[in-house]
């Protein structure tokens, strides 16, 4: 049998960790992460986008999950429950998306399943196992404590909504709410640090001291992944001739064409063309690919617009990109420009619909702002632990540029970037931190139990989860 030795993991019952099998839910603008505490990757990563057919009301149908929102069906609108301020706006749908994230890949038992499939009428109760399952599945989380993450600027109202959701809708026995910033720091093994999180809709800078988020210091800006996407769109539009952006679903088959030549693909026709929002969402896939394979940040020294930097960039080899319709081109210096706005607002491309971003939205300014709210003697400590997280930080040369910018602002301190190499850790840092936290035996005392919630009401979240 398996004899324990120094290299084997401790037995599950030696520490209290795995017994509870808590679920960690980390909802974000682009994806919703969910998984069991104690694991190193979230098992369930679902898009936060959802499809809707029909207008709001009883007659509309909703579609969740990766499989259903990429289907070019007429009238399918793609929506997102998050508001522009980085706080959930559409609670009803957000609840459904999160529930889908948990039930589809983790628990499996949808609350409606036993009644809906109609198979149980004839079966009776011969199988003991099944009866138990039916009871459990009345509410999706009846036997799992739930740890949720929230953005640092979450409103009190939204926080209360979270806890109500967890206890009333999902019937969880215990709940805790934690800020993404602190959790991302935990994931890197830091109790103190400054967390720079560049996500899809927002960039945030969170100072964390001894595991506590300094709430005043939390800074956010809308310059993040979606901003870069829009910059790419603008860049395509402003280039002459205009670069066409055709998503995959419109193309039946493509033919190879010369660089810059118009595409010669055969296109598909639809009886009812998919909606504008669907098209936009599909275009986003192409832009993601573009970001992955073409976009690059000017790594310094100096900003991209400074002096001869642009000239140097032009002399570097360009990177080719092929659109789904076969159109292709080599992108030279413009691939640096589209992401430059993250660090230098004046370099951002603008047009009538997208005005120049504010200067204080740029990442260096956010860090500066955040640190002004921290005691001066704590700043060196935080600057030694600059945790970089979020999917958009995977932009090529992001870290080099960030390092350069920080060293320019704070030349006298020892600044150290902590950016985990594995992509998974970078993308899901907050979830991983939550997974670590919820599996700690000592975390048990922090849970808000159902009983406490019933006694004190949803307000308890303000007192207990700081």
């Amino acid at each position, binding site marked *: *049998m*398996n004899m324990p030795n120094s290299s084997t993991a401790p037995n*599950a*019952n030696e520490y209290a960790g795995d017994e509870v*099998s808590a679920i960690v839910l980390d909802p974000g603008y682009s994806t919703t992460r969910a998984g069991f505490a104690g694991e190193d*990757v*979230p*098992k369930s*990563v679902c898009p936060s986008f959802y499809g809707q057919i029909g207008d709001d009301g009883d007659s509309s149908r909703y579609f969740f999950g*990766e*499989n259903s929102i990429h289907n070019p069906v007429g009238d399918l609108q793609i929506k997102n429950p998050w508001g522009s301020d980085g706080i959930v706006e559409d609670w009803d749908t957000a609840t459904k998306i999160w529930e889908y994230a948990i*039930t*589809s*890949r983790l*628990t*499996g*038992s949808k609350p409606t399943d036993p009644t809906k499939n109609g198979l*149980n009428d*004839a*079966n009776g109760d*011969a*199988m003991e*196992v*099944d009866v138990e*399952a039916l009871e459990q599945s009345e509410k999706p989380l009846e036997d799992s404590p739930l740890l949720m993450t929230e953005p640092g600027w979450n409103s009190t109202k939204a926080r209360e909504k979270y806890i109500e959701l967890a206890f009333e809708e999902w019937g969880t026995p215990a709940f805790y709410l934690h800020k993404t910033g602190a959790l991302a720091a935990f994931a890197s093994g830091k109790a103190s640090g400054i967390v720079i999180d560049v996500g899809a809709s927002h960039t945030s800078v969170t100072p964390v001291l001894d595991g506590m988020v300094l709430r005043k210091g939390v800074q956010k800006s809308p310059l993040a992944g979606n901003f870069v996407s829009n910059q790419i769109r603008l860049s395509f539009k402003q280039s002459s001739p205009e670069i066409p952006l055709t998503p*995959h679903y419109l*193309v*039946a*088959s*493509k033919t190879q*064409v*010369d*660089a*810059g*030549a118009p595409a010669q693909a055969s296109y598909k026709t639809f009886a009812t063309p998919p909606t504008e929002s669907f098209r936009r969402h599909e275009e986003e896939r192409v832009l993601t*690919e573009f970001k*992955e*394979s073409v976009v690059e940040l000017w*790594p310094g020294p100096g900003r991209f617009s400074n002096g001869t930097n642009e000239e*140097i960039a*032009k*002399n*570097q*080899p*360009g*990177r*080719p990109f*092929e659109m*789904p319709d*076969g159109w*292709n*081109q*080599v992108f*030279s210096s*413009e691939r640096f420009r589209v992401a430059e706005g993250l660090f230098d607002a004046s370099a951002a491309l603008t047009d009538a619909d997208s005005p120049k971003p504010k200067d204080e939205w740029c990442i260096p300014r956010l860090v500066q702002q955040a640190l002004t709210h921290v005691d001066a003697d704590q700043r060196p400590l935080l600057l030694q632990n600059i945790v970089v997280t979020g999917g958009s930080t995977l932009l*090529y040369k992001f870290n080099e540029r960030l390092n350069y910018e920080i060293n320019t602002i704070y030349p006298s301190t020892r600044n150290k970037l902590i950016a985990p190499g*594995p*992509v*998974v850790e970078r*993308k899901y840092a907050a979830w991983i931190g939550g997974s670590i936290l919820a599996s700690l035996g000592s975390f048990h005392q922090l849970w808000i139990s159902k009983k406490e919630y019933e006694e004190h009401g949803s307000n308890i979240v303000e007192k207990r989860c700081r």
Partner: protein
Amino acid sequence: MPAFKDDQIIVIEPGSETTLAQLGLAESLTPARLRVRSRMFPAEKEGEWEPYKIRRRADLSGKPTEGQNGTAEGDEAKKTAGGDDDEVVYEEDRVSEEGAVWPIQQGRITNWPCFFALITHVYNTLNPPFHTPILLIAQPSWTPREHEKLTQFFFEKFKTPAFGLMDAALATSWAYGVHTSTIVDVGKDKVDVTAISEFIPHITGRVTALDGCGGEALTEGLLAKLKSKKFTRAMCEQLKKSPICEILPPGVPVPGSGEVGDQETITNPASAASTGAPGSGAAAASGLGNVPRGPGIDTEVGDEANGDGEENEGVLDVASIVAGGKMSEYLAKKEKEKQDKALAKKKGAEAPKTDNRPVRLPNAKREKATFMYEDHALLDTLKNMNLGTKGMAEAHAALDEGPQKKPQEDQDGEPRSVVEANGNTELGPAISKTGHIRREIEVGAERFQAASNGVLERIADAIHRTISSVDEVNKRSELWESLVICGNGSRVRGFKEALLATLQSKYLISPSSATMFTSEIPSNISTPTGTGANTPQPQLGPHGGSSGVNPLLLAATTAQNPHMLPPGANPLMSSHNTHSSHGQTPTNIKFVKPPEYFPEWKDVGFDEAAFLGAQVAAKVLFVVDQGASKGYMTRPDYNDQGPTGIHDYGL
């Protein structure tokens, strides 16, 4: 605990359509020995399940059927319920699927009691000794909680000494022996796409249970095309499994696609039959090789010729004729047809052979073809009519058009070789092949249009999404170059090739003309932005180091031409091109070659490779590894940790 031996291991792979299982591993690994349709029938008592349809006969005419055991209907093992109580007679009908419950839908277990009953049935059929470890192949859509439930069931019901769960996609990659691959599992009603790198499945981006894309969707596709021709669903299902059904790659014209009208393109085989001369045109000529003699459209002779809609309608749906009491009329007609047919055959033989020989066109060129249809509905109808043995046999003989070489009269009791086709999954040894009533049916070009409802494109899109969601971008090109398409839904002829062609036409990134020749033209010209088409510039390959450019070639060219490196960019360059996240994929899309050292699998194909992989894994885990790397959970482990412990074990 004594070590496990090869012959003690059970491997079970539940599927939506067929459940595969085997006790013991052979010296050379074989396809699953036990194949069971994944369905159970509700028993009379609630909550109990039977593996076969149980028909209840409480009729008075039950008497004459007494002596039928071992005769014509050998498949209908009879038993009397309640001892000698003659009034209620039950019989097992091993062919019928009326009222069956399929516990696995789209890979998910939707009816747990039924599923457990199915597994119990499989287990009992295998009849294993006590010291038997079990490896269960888990569908990707099963959740961790469901894994726990299964673990509990296996340990508590079967008291198995060791139990392991293995992901189906991972099992397939084991079978192919590749560490990094994209597994596309085309099932009955769903498709799973899994990217596996270094034997680890990417859970987060995998597409599980993409609905409306499996074999069922292909049947639906056929049905949609053929509904107007009075084809039933069952016919389409069997058509799909027959070798004449084929999926053509995009861009390949469907034969006779100019007009596939109901009447126009049909050359009348009746005229061919009566004159002995082939009709005109390739279609007619090719059709003559095996002139459709069955009750297919437009095959009547003489006064019952075309245009008689009512007749045509009735002809395909023989079951309703029989049920409607017109059987004797119909049989008479059939008899006539058979005689005509024999006549036609004779005449056909006299016809000049030069006409017949060269027109044996490949299926894809022929406009029409015929296939054998096993009419279960008709058989059911006959059974429900309670004909006596003799009546049954006669009807059977009259209606069956299966093999044509033997005399038609006295053969219905004999087992026949069934027209084995693309994916006839009904191979269970328990299910006898007799008793089917076969009819020949002709179809036109519709048989090439099973996937016309966008199935291939949806699967292609799912593959693209799956691979694009793999975080290690440098792995993507390798994933594109090692596609594995498995699952019985992909058995339809041409499916894999068509899918590959779809992928290539939609997603393949061709080398950009702007950078194609750059490594051959030493140049220090800096590129003007925007339209760099005609100003080639030095570069380390079109798509960065990771994507398809031979790194050795690259190194060789640049080493000999140091001036090729652009000025002032050297340090950046090197890091740039080794950076993983740059380079668009795919530049190459390929299938993985199936392994060649499994002779038993070669003939049947590797569509069920997951089972093979699981056998390999079972051998490694239970026999070689003996649990050292926690590949399976033992009973003591289970007693210690309970069902949730299963997550700590596995590959």
